[in-house]
C-alpha cells in the first residue's frame, strides 16, 4: 500500500523528521488560503500515485497570489499519467543549496534491509543506481538488531555529505530506518532531502510503501488507504481480491497461480495473439470466485475471447467447473467465446459437470491457447 505524499509527510513529521509547513487543498480557493497562511513562495504538488510528477507538470512553485492561482488551475483536474488530480499539497518552498537522497528498503537478493544515502539527490535515483552506483552509499542492516548509529554515520560520510550537516542527515536516515521497521514498510524514502543556505536539513518529499501482507498489524496505516482514481477494471479486481493487471491485447486470460498465468500470457503471445490481462484467481478458488473472474474479463471491452486455464492442486476442478457454469448460465448466448482447459485435482469430475455445449474445451494448455487466439482473430500455428 502506497501512502500519498501528504500522508507520508504526516507520519514523518510525527516521527520528528523536519518537513516543511504544508496544507492539503482541493480547490483553487483552498490553495490560495493555504498559500496565504504558509507564506510565499510555496510549492503546489499533485497528490497522485505517480512517479516523476515534477517533470509531468504536477509540481509548480508559486511566488504570488496570481502565480498560485495559475498553478492551482493547471494542476487541479489535470490528468497525470492516467490519474485525475483532485488534491494538491501546498507547501512552503524550500530555498536550497543542495539536494540529497536518503532511503531504506529491503535488499531482496541479500534478504536484508539496506539503508542508502546519495549526495546526488533530487534526480531519478534509479538512474543514478544504474549509471553511477558508487554515488550511492549502502549499509546492510541486521534486521534482528536494527541499524546502529555508526552505520547511519558511515553511510552519510561515505556518500560525501558535507560534515556540517552530516549528523542531521544521519539522524534523518536513522529515523527513516526506525519508521521502516516499525511500520513494516517496503520502503521509506526522501528524495530530495534539501540543505538550505542556513545549513538546515528539510525533507522536501516523502515516500512510504507499506507491505500489504503486514497491514493486519498496522490498523492505523491501513485506514489511510484511499481508493485511487484508477482504471475501473483494476478497481473491480481490488474489490474481488484478484491479482489483476490490464494489458493491451484482446485475449482474456484467467488461471490459477502466478507462474501458470504468466505462462499462459506468454503462450498467447507465442501463438500470435495478444493478452488482454493477467488474472490469477489464486489457490483453492470456489465457484463464486470463478464466476467473478469471468465477470471481470467480460467487462473488458477489448476482450474478444477468453482462455480459462486451471491446473488444480489445492484448487478443485469440479469447483471451477461449477463456477464457470454459474457464470455463463445468465447468458442466452455467450458475449465472447470461452476456451476451457481443466487439469489436476478433480479435473475429471469437473469435465463431467462442465457445460460443454456453450464452451470450447481443450485438453492441453497449448491447444487451449491456440484456439483462443484463433477466436480473437489472431494468428495461430
Amino acid at each position: 500500500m502506497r501512502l500519498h505524499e501528504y500522508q507520508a509527510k504526516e507520519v514523518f513529521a510525527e516521527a520528528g523528521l523536519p518537513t516543511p509547513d504544508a496544507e492539503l487543498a482541493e480547490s483553487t480557493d483552498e490553495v490560495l488560503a493555504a498559500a496565504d497562511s504558509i507564506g510565499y513562495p510555496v510549492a503546489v504538488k499533485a497528490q497522485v500515485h505517480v512517479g516523476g510528477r515534477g517533470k509531468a507538470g504536477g509540481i509548480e512553485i508559486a511566488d504570488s497570489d496570481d502565480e498560485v492561482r495559475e498553478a492551482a488551475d493547471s494542476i487541479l483536474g489535470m490528468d497525470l499519467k492516467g490519474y485525475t488530480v483532485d488534491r494538491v499539497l501546498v507547501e512552503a518552498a524550500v530555498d536550497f543549496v543542495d539536494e540529497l537522497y536518503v532511503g531504506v528498503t529491503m535488499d531482496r537478493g541479500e534478504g536484508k534491509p539496506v539503508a542508502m544515502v546519495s549526495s546526488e539527490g533530487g534526480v531519478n535515483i534509479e538512474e543514478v543506481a544504474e549509471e553511477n552506483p558508487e554515488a550511492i552509499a549502502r549499509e546492510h542492516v541486521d534486521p534482528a538488531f536494527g541499524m546502529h548509529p555508526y552505520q547511519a554515520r558511515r553511510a552519510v560520510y561515505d556518500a560525501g555529505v558535507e560534515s556540517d550537516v552530516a549528523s542531521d542527515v544521519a539522524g534523518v536516515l536513522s529515523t527513516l530506518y526506525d519508521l521502516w521497521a516499525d511500520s513494516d514498510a517496503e520502503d521509506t524514502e526522501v528524495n530530495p532531502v534539501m540543505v538550505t543556505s542556513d545549513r538546515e536539513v528539510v525533507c522536501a518529499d516523502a515516500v512510504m510503501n507499506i507491505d500489504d501482507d503486514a497491514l493486519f498489524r498496522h490498523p492505523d496505516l491501513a485506514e489511510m488507504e484511499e481508493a485511487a482514481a484508477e482504471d475501473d477494471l483494476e478497481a473491480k479486481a481490488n474489490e474481488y481480491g484478484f491479482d489483476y493487471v490490464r494489458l493491451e491485447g484482446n485475449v482474456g486470460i484467467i488461471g490459477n497461480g502466478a507462474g501458470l498465468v504468466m505462462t499462459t500470457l506468454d503462450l498467447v503471445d507465442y501463438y500470435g495473439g495478444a493478452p488482454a490481462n493477467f488474472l490469477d484467481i489464486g489457490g483453492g478458488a470456489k465457484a463464486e470466485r470463478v464466476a467473478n473472474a469471468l465477470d471481470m474479463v467480460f467487462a473488458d471491452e477489448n476482450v474478444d475471447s477468453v482462455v480459462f486455464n486451471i491446473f488444480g492442486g489445492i484448487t478443485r476442478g469440479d469447483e471451477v467447473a461449477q463456477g464457470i457454469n454459474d457464470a455463463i448460465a445468465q447468458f442466452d448466448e455467450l458475449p465472447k467465446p470461452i476456451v476451457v482447459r481443466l487439469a489436476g485435482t478433480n479435473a475429471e469430475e469437473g469435465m463431467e459437470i462442465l457445460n460443454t455445449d456453450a464452451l470450447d474445451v481443450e485438453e492441453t494448455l497449448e491447444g487451449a491457447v491456440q484456439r483462443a487466439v484463433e477466436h480473437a482473430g489472431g494468428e495461430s500455428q
Partner: protein
Amino acid sequence: MSVLVDDDTRVVVQGITGGEGEFHAGQMIEYGTNVVAGAVPGRGGEEVHGVPVYDTVSRAAEAENADASVVLVPPAFAADALFEALDSPVDLVVAITEGIPAQDMARVYKRLGETDTHLIGPNCPGVITPGEAKLGILPGNIFSSGNVGLISRSGTLTYQVVDNLTDRGLGQTTAIGIGGDPIIGTDFVDALSLFEDDPATDAIVMCGEIGGTDEEEAAEYIDANMTTPVAGFIAGRTAPPGKRMGHAGAIVSGSGAGTAESKIEALSEAGVPVGDTPEEVADNVEELL
C-alpha cells in the same frame, strides 16, 4: 535416490489442527509420507488422522524422532512457527504459508543462516519424491518416479511442467517448489547443488520467472559447477515493466534487470536450453538425457 525427502523422512506438521493443516496432513499420509506428529500450541495430547499432536515442535521432534517439518500456519503466526522449527531443531522445514510479511522473513532468513537446516519456501507447494514422500500441497497423482530433478518458483507451473514430463514417460527424482516470494530459504543455486550431488538425477528442469536475479545467479553457477545437464523455462516474457504479476517477486523493474530476456540470455550462455513452451521443455529434457 532423491534429494531432501524420501521414505525415511519423519515429518511433523505444524498447524495440523487447522483446516488446511488437517486436510493436507491427510493427503500427505495418503500419499505414503511418514507423518509422525503434529504440533499445535494448546492441542497437545490430541490426535489427527491417528497422528499424535504435541504442544511444541521440540516435544514432537523428540518424542517421534522427527527430522522435517511442514508449516501450514496462518501468515500472522508463520514466522514464529518457522523460528520454532529452526530451534527444535529439524533438518528440513517446508513453509507452505503465503503472505508472510517480508520483514518477518528477513529475520527468519538471518536466523536460518546460523543453522544447518534447509528451508523450502515460504509460499511454495512443497517437495515431493514421487512414490516415497510429499511434504506440502502438491497433487501427488501427476508425478512419477524417474531421473529428472525439478526446481520451480511457481506451484501451478510446476504441475504443468511435470504433466508435460510425465506424459513423455520422464519421471522425477524429486520436485522442489522453492516459492515465489522475494525472500526464500532454498534458492535455485542451493537446489541445483543438491541435484548435482544426487547420482539418480540425470537431468534437471529449472522453472524461473521474471523478477529478482536468482536465475542469472543460477546460470553463473551452472556454468562454473554443474555436470548434470539443465533445461530451463522462464515465465513472464510478456509482462509489462513496473507491474507486479501475482508473486511478490515477479515484478520487472524498468531498467532491464530481472526481465525474462536477461534470464533467458544468461541461461542460454550457460548452455541451458530454454523452452518457449512447457512442451518444448520436455523436448529439451528428452534430448539432454
